[in-house]
């Protein structure tokens, strides 16, 4: 079982380039459309000056999974942290536990929003909807190993420092 999971594990993650995001929220709209009207990207308001999407990092040791009292949050076969809709009771424990504020409080059908990294697209070789739709090229879907080592990377975000990055 373990080996089957590791074979299928997707090690790419969404990274936001702070220098490119215009705050247009097209990523949120794409998420909204792709998830039946529930937006799993939280708009992060930076001191009244900017709005940037806050996305789930699918942590290796996920605080949200630990906090969930019903086991609704779990790690699935590709390594993503997902939410079983039928088990979610909308208690918001995950929302409080997430250190990044990646789980918002927009309850649709009484369940909390949780990014599934658009697993339907990713397993087919695509990129998550928000990344594909991003109007500025601020969002990219990259190998975590490649990104974490770079000096620009800070907890799921990068500052581009004058380089061009493409989705």
């Amino acid at each position, binding site marked *: 079982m373990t080996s089957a999971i590791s074979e299928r594990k997707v090690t790419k993650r969404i990274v936001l380039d702070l220098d490119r995001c*215009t705050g247009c*929220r097209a990523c949120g709209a794409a998420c909204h459309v792709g998830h039946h009207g529930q937006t799993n990207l939280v708009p992060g308001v930076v001191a009244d000056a900017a709005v940037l999407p806050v996305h789930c990092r699918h942590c290796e040791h996920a605080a949200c999974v630990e906090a969930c009292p019903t086991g609704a949050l779990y790690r699935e076969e590709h390594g993503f942290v997902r939410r079983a809709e039928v088990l979610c009771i909308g208690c918001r424990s995950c929302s409080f536990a997430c250190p990044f504020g990646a789980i918002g409080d927009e309850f649709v059908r009484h369940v909390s929003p949780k990014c599934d990294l658009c697993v339907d697209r990713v397993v087919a070789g695509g990129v998550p909807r928000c990344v594909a739709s991003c109007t500025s090229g601020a969002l990219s879907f990259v190998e975590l190993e490649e990104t974490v080592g770079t000096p620009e990377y800070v907890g799921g975000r990068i500052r581009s420092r004058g380089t*061009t990055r493409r*989705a």
Partner: protein
Amino acid sequence: MGCTLLIRSAGHGPYVGEPTLPTLDYDTEGAFNRGSLCGCGNLSLELCSHPRRFESPRMRDAAGVLQEVTWSKALDEIAARLGAIRRESGPGSVGLWLAPSLSNEDAERVARFARLLDVPNVDSGLPEDQALLGGIERAGVSVERVERIEQLAGATAMLCVGDVLTLAPCLAKPVLDARYDRRQNLLGTLAGARSRTTWFGKPDLRCAPGGETAALALMLHVALLGGHGRGVPWRQSALDGLDAIGIATLERAAALRRDAVASLVDALAERPGTAILIGVGFADRARPDLAAGLAAMLAAVTDSRLLAVPQGANAVGVRRALRAEGYPDRAGLTGPEMLEAALTGELRALLLFGLDPIAATPGHLARSALGRLDLLVAADVLPNRATHRADFVLPACVAGEKHGHFTNAFGADLELGVALRPPGEARTEAFLIGELERRMLGGAAIRRVPEPEQRPGALEQKSGGGLFADLDLFLRLQEREHTGREVGTHLLLGRADPAQSGDGSWTRHLSWPQHDTPRPEVSLAVEDAAELGVRTGDQVRLRSPGAEVVLAVRTEPRLPRHVVLAPGSEPGVRDLLRWRLDPALRQIALDPVRVSVERVDGGQP
């Protein structure tokens, strides 16, 4: 949609799949901008199956209630009433106004129908877009246009006038590619208030609110004085016109000093592959035509390419199609003129194709004008304030439900196929026009369309003195307005809203704008908010004579005092505005509006 299916800047349609079951895809390998889709574009499929879509023709009965009728009943009645008005009051009493979202073929069809009926009154699009595009034509200068996305992405220096990245989010990738490609690249932004575009400004030229036109004139003056544009034939006349106004006047009106703009002007002139982008200046809506004309002149003098970004999805294509058919006709009326003619009774019948004049023109006038008509026909997809007043509502199709070509802002024609069936009995404009033609003129008439006379459109004028004389007058009026400010009032400026497109009459129905910005917000300077005793999230009432709107507050750190920024597509905000017909432009010119702002007690909205 402002950017229906990437019409404005991308090169592919996002519909894939079976005709009845389309899904949205993102072509990340797409040649244009690699899959980007703005918020409204993402939601475009909602229009196709929207529960409020018109699915059958409706006719107002004797009691004033819109009742469902068959297409043949509606068309017979419209043809009979339109024919009677035309006979009684002449073809000049009939008008047609087209949305900028129509396809090029639809626009041609409507124009040819009008010519068959001898109707001179045909206009398209939103008045601001007409002013923007007309202003460039009116300047009459020869300037290269941005024709390919790479010309933006590879630019070494660029000037963005207005909030172009909110108007056309799909331009963000190439613009930011240019910005970050090399450290020395310049992305200059010019605006009266902070916006999504100005975040990236290097330099971020912050002019006085409403001062973009003066700032562009200042940049043009600095460029000419700096010896640039030696090859342009109108160099001396432009210098004379600007000298007559005086550089000090321009500096004062723009609240910018000549040194602040000089390095960007030099970079635009001296570097290879530079570009100037101009969107409808939300902060400077009063005369977007002047700003656009000056931007075109600056582009010519600095050897930069020009890109005009209208609000309407196919504003360029519909305008071009009408002009090929000889519209706007010198003897005919433009859209805003039709509204004035309706008030005097000169115009008795108006056919609207996807356009809501009440949303397209701010203020109250359109509402009263539509109420005075003897016949109002609205072919549209979703309810709006014009369909509420119409005698006939005809269910139309959106892009994806009909075949057609659309011209993007780069001037490229894009073809969109049929991806899904229209709901109920919704029909294309081709069907509607064909059926009206058959009823009013007989089938043979289509072969007898008179050729348009080869006369210049009413908006075309020779370049030179006219523009600078208008600029001088505009600056004097603006100065008078600014110095005559009543204590306690605030200058109202419009803000582009990324969740709304065009005049907002379609996008307002989509779930994302409602989800994303459920409460329209007004930006107040931090000091003004403190003086009023309000914080972000509180409510304030904005009042102008005859209108008021309640909005949620957002405090804005760098906003000048006594200026408020409100969403330009919000109906309540548009009601606060006033316009007059500009005789040279034959489109609307907004009067600067001062509003009083008062706190609404009773807690947060």
